[in-house]
Every structure is written in structure tokens, then in C-alpha cells.
């Protein structure tokens, strides 16, 4: 077990409300990532972090923000949830160095109604 947890596991929210998803790691890895998974699209990168307070955008970052105030926590916020943000969200961690893949959390299924 790589020591990465996501919360909540499931969430239903209303359009227009803010939502925050949490990713917590106990591995002290430098890199943390948020992906969304949608049928026919695979996994697409939303945002990632390469250190405390160091973050950057991925390919589908519009409507999302992130924060990393501690090594172990990476938060993803949907400022004002829309139905197009209904998806499964995965957090991943990596030690860095190109020989390694990622270790993934169990995912959060978010439904925006």
C-alpha cells in the first residue's frame, strides 16, 4: 500500500456550489497530480504540484484550482461546479525521476446535478 488516500470517495453536489477534493499521502513524495477520467478520454491531467506551494496547470485546468500548503496534502477545488465536471477524479503521487510511474489513489466519483 503506497500510502495515498483520497476523500471523499463519492460526492453529489449541485451546480454552482464549490467543491473541494482532498488527496493525502504518507510517502513524502515530491510530486502530486490530479487527473480526471471520462469515458473515451482516458485520464487527463488537471493540475500538478512539484513541491509545497509549487503548482502548475495541466491540459484541462479551466474551472479548477489547487493548493498544496503541506507536502502531504494536495487539494483540488471546483470553484463553481458544473455538470461537465461530473467525472471520476484521481490523485497520484511520484517520487520524481523518470524511472518511476505513478501511484494512484482510489478515486473520487463526483456527480454534479
Amino acid at each position: 500500500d503506497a500510502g495515498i488516500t483520497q476523500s471523499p470517495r463519492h460526492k453529489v453536489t449541485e451546480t454552482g456550489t464549490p467543491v473541494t477534493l482532498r488527496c493525502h499521502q504518507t510517502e513524502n513524495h515530491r510530486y502530486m497530480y490530479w487527473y480526471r477520467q471520462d469515458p473515451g478520454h482516458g485520464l487527463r491531467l488537471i493540475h500538478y504540484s512539484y513541491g509545497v506551494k509549487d503548482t502548475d496547470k495541466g491540459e484541462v485546468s479551466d474551472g479548477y484550482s489547487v493548493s498544496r500548503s503541506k507536502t502531504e496534502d494536495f487539494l483540488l477545488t471546483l470553484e463553481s461546479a458544473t455538470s461537465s465536471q461530473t467525472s471520476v477524479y484521481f490523485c497520484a503521487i511520484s517520487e520524481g525521476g523518470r524511472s518511476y510511474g505513478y501511484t494512484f489513489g482510489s478515486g473520487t466519483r463526483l456527480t454534479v446535478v
Partner: protein
Amino acid sequence: AQTVTQSQPEMSVQEAETVTLSCTYDTSESDYYLFWYKQPPSRQMILVIRQEAYKQQNATENRFSVNFQKAAKSFSLKISDSQLGDAAMYFCAYRGGSEKLVFGKGMKLTVNP
């Protein structure tokens, strides 16, 4: 930007038979890593196998092996002696110098008893 293409959205195989999943990628980098991830219905992302581009020898992990053709930018996964537990979504992924993992759209593998 790097891209990963999995052209077959679905495949099926008989139990105990061999199946090959295809993946192609596009990159201008010479040093990179390629991965196959498995996602069973539990939603967990599981690393199956990885290949380092500078190694000519194809990676193997028990019943899983790859056919890495660097010049052709092809990275196929062969599953031998297929088992019911191999039924899952399979994702091909690329990681170069950016520390970001780029995924293909995935392929659903069905194993028939």
C-alpha cells in the same frame, strides 16, 4: 506535446489464450518511459509493466510482456495465458522529461471463460 494512441477501444480473448494490446505514441524526446496500467472494475489504477526507452530489451513481468519498437514508436502489451482476472481497462502511458504522465484513451479487455 506528446500523444499516446490506443486505437482499439475494446478487445476480447478466450481464457488461457494470448492477446496483444496495441499502443503508439508520438514524441521528439529520445529519453522516456512507457507504462501499461490496468484498471479493474474496482477503479484502482495498477501498474502492470514499464519500459525504459534506452533499453533495447523488452520488459517482462510474469504473463505480461511488451514489444517495444522505438523507431516505429510502438509499445504493445502481450498477455499470455489470459485469466478472468485480467478483464479490465488497460491504459498505455508515456512519461518524458516533464514529470507528467500522458495517457491513451484506454482499451476494455473482456476475458471469456
